């Protein structure tokens, strides 16, 4: 048919070389066949033979645009629109050209013009919406996508783009402040629609999985990701998300495999490198973790967490300054990174700089006011008599936040039992608060009945209070829990060398037997 049409049109041109419609139609035939050079030749002929031929001007402009001759294309689009100011196709394609030329405002105006002339021209709404990427334009973009979908229900790209818009949800209020307008339910419905129309859309499969991952629907998310990867085996992002889910499900082997694939298919992948490094750190594979975290930082130096984990690995290094450098870097990027302050404090403590450690524990509590462990460690390090009040306050705060903090009860008990404090004039006072100390050791034991050290300290206090039998029980429990606890045996010996203690304990040991005997007698009776 086409061949016949071509032959007929060529014949017509042969008979009348100035027949511009024949040139135009022949150009359209070549265009449909993909022979764009020939198409241009005929469109140019048509335009030169009839300067008032808007359709030919428009098609010529489209083809010139295709050949990246943008300025020539613009000229012919403008010719077409001058000849026919209501020429929808010319406006629409001119708008697309303006997008290519990055003149987005003018492009939007032209898409508007298209919609003005033909209110049912769905691509105009869709393409305009795609240009509205600023958070200020969120609602307008959404409206345009929705209009495009009202006109053309099975508009796959519009469904996909609207879903992506709602997945991100970055918008602003009237006053310019940021607002989260994510609507994952609606986004999901649009991704499902895309997959209904085209089940092989790897992007829709992947983005749907992203939402499901955020909703902790790991099983469903994995099935969509598996499909996305099947459709596009080198889909780096899909491998990355797949790995994240495997990691959440504690299947570290598979997680490692997919992080590695994600990196293999897209090497400049700081996120995957970071997560892989972090995972390797958690699996104690420190050399690999260090390597990957360093690569991640090279690609994205602003990743505070990558610096933090690298610092944690470097704490094992002989040179403490290496870890410090990365802790400080993490804190420079994110000054509210409480965990970084906390671990930096531990690092300082292990490097022997107790004062610096205290400063960082303090900082961690400033940033995260409910950081019980930070208060506890700050108190634990405030061990001099002049810091007694500070330590007491911080132990109490830690226990207010986390009542069942057994270690904190234990250390607080030790502070109270020792009771060494310095007055303002520098006098050392020794005022043990034995009752409070006993209370906290008992709490520590209640929370963790295997805390043999708490039993040990409780035993010492009870023995000071001459409650020898209870002291003996407590010390004995401590060595029962940990038979290798040398101090427990020692303290028990100290107690047993006290004659009063020895006799009270021996008496108490006999007592239950006599009770038992009286019980058995009464039973016999």
């Amino acid at each position: 048919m086409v061949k016949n049409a071509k032959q007929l049109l060529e014949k017509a041109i042969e008979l009348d070389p100035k027949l511009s419609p024949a040139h135009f139609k022949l150009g359209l035939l070549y265009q449909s066949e993909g022979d764009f050079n020939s198409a241009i030749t005929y469109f140019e002929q048509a335009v030169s033979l009839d300067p008032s031929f808007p359709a030919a001007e428009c098609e010529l402009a489209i083809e010139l645009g295709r050949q990246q001759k943008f300025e020539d294309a613009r000229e012919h689009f403008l010719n077409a629109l001058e000849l026919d100011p209501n020429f929808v196709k010319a406006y629409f394609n001119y708008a697309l050209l303006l997008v290519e030329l990055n003149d987005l405002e003018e492009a939007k105006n032209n898409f508007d013009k298209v919609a003005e002339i033909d209110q049912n021209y769905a691509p105009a709404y869709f393409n305009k919406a795609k240009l509205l990427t600023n958070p200020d334009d969120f609602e307008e973009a959404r409206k345009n996508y929705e209009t495009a979908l009202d006109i053309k229900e099975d508009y796959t790209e519009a469904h996909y783009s609207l879903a992506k818009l709602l997945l991100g949800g970055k918008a602003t209020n009237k006053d310019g402040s940021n607002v989260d307008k994510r609507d994952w339910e609606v986004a999901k419905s649009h991704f499902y629609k895309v997959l209904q129309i085209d089940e092989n859309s790897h992007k829709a499969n992947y983005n749907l999985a992203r939402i499901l991952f955020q909703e902790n629907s790991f099983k469903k998310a994995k099935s969509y990701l598996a499909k996305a990867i099947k459709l596009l085996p080198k889909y780096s992002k899909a491998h990355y998300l797949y790995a994240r889910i495997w990691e959440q499900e504690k299947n570290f082997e598979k997680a490692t495999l997919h992080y590695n694939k994600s990196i293999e298919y897209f090497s400049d992948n700081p996120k995957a490198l970071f997560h892989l490094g972090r995972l390797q750190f958690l699996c104690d594979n420190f050399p690999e973790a260090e390597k990957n975290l360093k690569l991640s930082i090279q690609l994205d130096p602003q990743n505070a967490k990558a610096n933090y984990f690298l610092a944690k690995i470097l704490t094992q290094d002989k040179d403490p300054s290496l870890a410090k450098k990365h802790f400080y870097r993490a804190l420079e990027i994110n000054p509210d990174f409480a965990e970084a302050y906390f671990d930096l404090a531990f690092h300082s403590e292990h490097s022997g700089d107790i004062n610096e450690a205290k400063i960082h524990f303090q900082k961690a509590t400033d940033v995260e006011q409910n950081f019980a462990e930070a208060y506890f460690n700050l108190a634990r390090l405030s061990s001099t008599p002049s810091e007694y009040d500070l330590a007491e306050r911080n132990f109490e705060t830690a226990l207010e936040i986390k009542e069942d903090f057994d270690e904190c009860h234990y250390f607080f008990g030790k502070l109270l039992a020792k009771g060494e404090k310095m007055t303002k004039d520098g006098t050392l006072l020794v005022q043990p608060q034995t009752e409070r100390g006993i209370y906290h050791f008992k709490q520590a034991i209640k929370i963790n009945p295997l805390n043999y050290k708490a039993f040990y300290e409780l035993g010492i206090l009870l023995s000071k209070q001459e409650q020898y039998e209870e002291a003996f029980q407590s010390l004995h429990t401590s060595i029962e829990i940990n038979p290798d606890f040398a101090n427990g045996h020692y303290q028990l010996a100290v107690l047993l060398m006290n004659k009063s203690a020895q006799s009270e304990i021996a008496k108490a040991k006999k007592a239950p037997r006599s009770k038992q005997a009286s019980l058995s007698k009464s039973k016999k009776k």
Partner: protein
Amino acid sequence: MSLDPMYHLLKALELDPKNPKAAYLHSKLLLDQGSPNAAIDFINSYLAEFGSHPDLHKLLALAYLQTGMIEKAEESISQALIQLPRSTDILHAAFRIKKAKGDKFSAFHFLERIIRHDDQSVETYWEMAQLLDPKTEAEKRTNLLEISYSINSKNFKIFKELIISYCDWFEGTLPQKEQHSYRKTFFDHTQSTFFLKLPQEVRKRSMLILKNITLHKDYFNFLT
């Protein structure tokens, strides 16, 4: 559940053989149980393996003292004193060794060193008084007992010894000028409720001395 402290000490040392506190207590228990030779063997092997420790040197010295090896005891206590010259415990052990040796001068010297670090130690003043001869060193002895009694005025044993010491002193020599200030103190002591509890013989001696004092020409000075 063993109630034998030795069992737990042996266990503690088995788990942490280096622990000096456990080693000390173990040695002390051996000494208390009357096994100084076992204590000597244990301490010597501990010191050879884990190095010097002042409290263990002290116990070793006391163990040697118990077995009558005074020279070795002196050697060990001097090792302890080199490391902790201000430890009252070690100084007291040194005193005991010198006393056992019959070296009263050195024994007294160690007690004086204890007093330098703890001038409220009743026992030390008492021990010092015991080292002095009741006849020839009566004044000094009375002084020491007086200090001891002033620190612990509820101790009848000290009071009794003090009054006897006064009697020995005043009976041995005629009332001297130096004794003036002591006469009033002695008189005051006889007014104490403790005085009535003294054995009759001591009270008689005291009353005789009081009578001599009142007959003396300086009696009025004494009253003022």
